[in-house]
């Protein structure tokens, strides 16, 4: 699959939703170590709402569909991660305005806007052990892929490798934000819970464009 079109979105968001509900317990466990254990609940809720919004959305504009999915998430799960991810989808949707399909280049723009939105809203820096530490490498990888003219499936594959490496790197970081911050260096060794969510999203997109190709 070289590009994602409007008709693909319900299935893509269904994939997001499944990834979250399958990993509900895993995310709860991750968040329980240095947080309040709710991440599995809130991501499950957020992506159920997003999937429902997309499934019902009659709009022809891809950007609008993403933005409204983001708004649905913001309503249904306004926790830290819920709000950040919702912001990401709204900002990402904005840069898709006026286009009909998501190619590698638009995919790169999307995640960059997604990342910037989260950075502006959450004010975290790279290395603070957050979702940003996965999204940063993902954006860098996608920009490389654009520069090298890679097709979407190949680009997503590369970005997933970058995402996983980013997640791995969070293990050695000390959390500076949210509830995890007060655990100080006792959270060294654990992968960040929010960053894990970002990997699940990239993984889902990746699987979607690969499987659809087959």
């Amino acid at each position, binding site marked *: 699959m070289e590009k994602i079109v409007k008709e693909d979105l319900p299935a893509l968001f269904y994939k997001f939703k499944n990834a979250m509900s399958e990993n509900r317990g895993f995310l709860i466990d991750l968040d329980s170590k240095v947080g309040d254990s709710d991440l599995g609940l809130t991501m499950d809720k957020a992506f159920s709402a997003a999937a429902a919004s997309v499934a019902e959305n009659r709009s022809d504009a891809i950007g609008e569909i993403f933005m409204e999915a983001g708004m649905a998430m913001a309503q249904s799960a306004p926790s830290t991660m*819920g709000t950040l991810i919702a912001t990401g989808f709204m900002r990402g949707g904005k840069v898709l305005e006026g286009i009909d399909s998501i190619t590698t280049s638009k995919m790169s723009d999307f995640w960059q806007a997604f990342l910037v939105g989260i950075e502006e809203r959450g004010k975290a820096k790279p290395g603070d052990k957050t979702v940003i530490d996965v999204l940063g490498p993902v954006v860098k990888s996608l920009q490389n892929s654009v520069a090298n003219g890679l097709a979407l499936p190949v680009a997503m594959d590369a970005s997933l490798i970058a995402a996983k490496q980013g997640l791995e790197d969070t293990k050695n970081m000390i959390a500076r934000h949210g509830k995890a911050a007060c655990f100080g260096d006792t959270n060294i060794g654990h992968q960040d819970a929010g960053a894990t969510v970002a990997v699940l999203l990239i993984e889902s997109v990746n699987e979607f464009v690969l499987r659809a190709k087959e």
Partner: protein
Amino acid sequence: MKKIINKAEDFVDEMIDGILRAHPDHLRCVEGDKRCLVTAQKRTNKVGIVTGGGSGHLPLFLGYIGEGMLDGCAVGGVFQSPSASQILSVTKSIGCEAGVLYLYGNYSGDVMNFDMASEMAEMQGMQTVTVTGNDDVASSSSDRKETRRGVAGIFFLYKAAGAAAALGMNLNDVTRIAIKAKESTRTIGVALSPCIVPELGRPSFTLGDNEMEIGMGIHGEPGIRRSSLKCADDIVQEMLDPVIADLPFEKNDEVAVLVNGLGATSKEELYIIYRKVSMILSGKGIKVYHTYVGEFATSMEMAGASVSLCRVDDELRRCLAYPVNSPFFSQKQM
């Protein structure tokens, strides 16, 4: 999980439904969204005060809506922020023409959603100012105060700002007084048992049978020190030392005291705690202006307590003395 509830996912909405049924003269919800609550005694010719935060902390946050305190509150899921659009809808509904103060605890989810609400409010021509409570001395060192969590001490911010607004002060002055109360208030907690978030169905942290943790946060965030359970006087001493050193509270200061139960701890124990607080303060030559003892900010059924001190001057005394009438807290003019 030994709780008197129905389905875990209905916990928050049924709780609010009960509150609206119990206090129809005091509280209204906005356009059918029960998580957007405003006072039934609207007063639009004053500064409005809006708060919000996760559920599971009654009487926080909605319990302080009422004459002399707050105008509205957006209620989130258990330990979760309300959404920006809910905060906005409360802000619009109270219709306060002299501007609105957003006053809530310093947690990232809440901060982001209130910030978003305030951006949206501004786009719609409403002026808002934000002050967050960050009274928990156990949550960061004093050089990183701005990252501290807000806990029970926010009561003093509500009380002071609420009185200032009720007295007809403008947004600048209400904000100034909220900030003064914030800068004068310090809190520390002690937890003896965890609590269970209904949708999780199990405690999100554990404490051994004979353990306590000084400084633990109201969502189970880690504190300063975990140890075996000590006697009340020793616990209180360990709690007050960092609180007094932090501001610092000094000889001849005058303070209001809040001894707050986290949920399962009895009022009897809270008064045994206050006894020692009173002895320590008088030993240091710190006067007590007024004492509040009870449940002001809970964590579901967690066992434990917190102690907050708020240093008062004439202006804060006048604000604390002002009467309040809400279904969860009421006070005569002192």
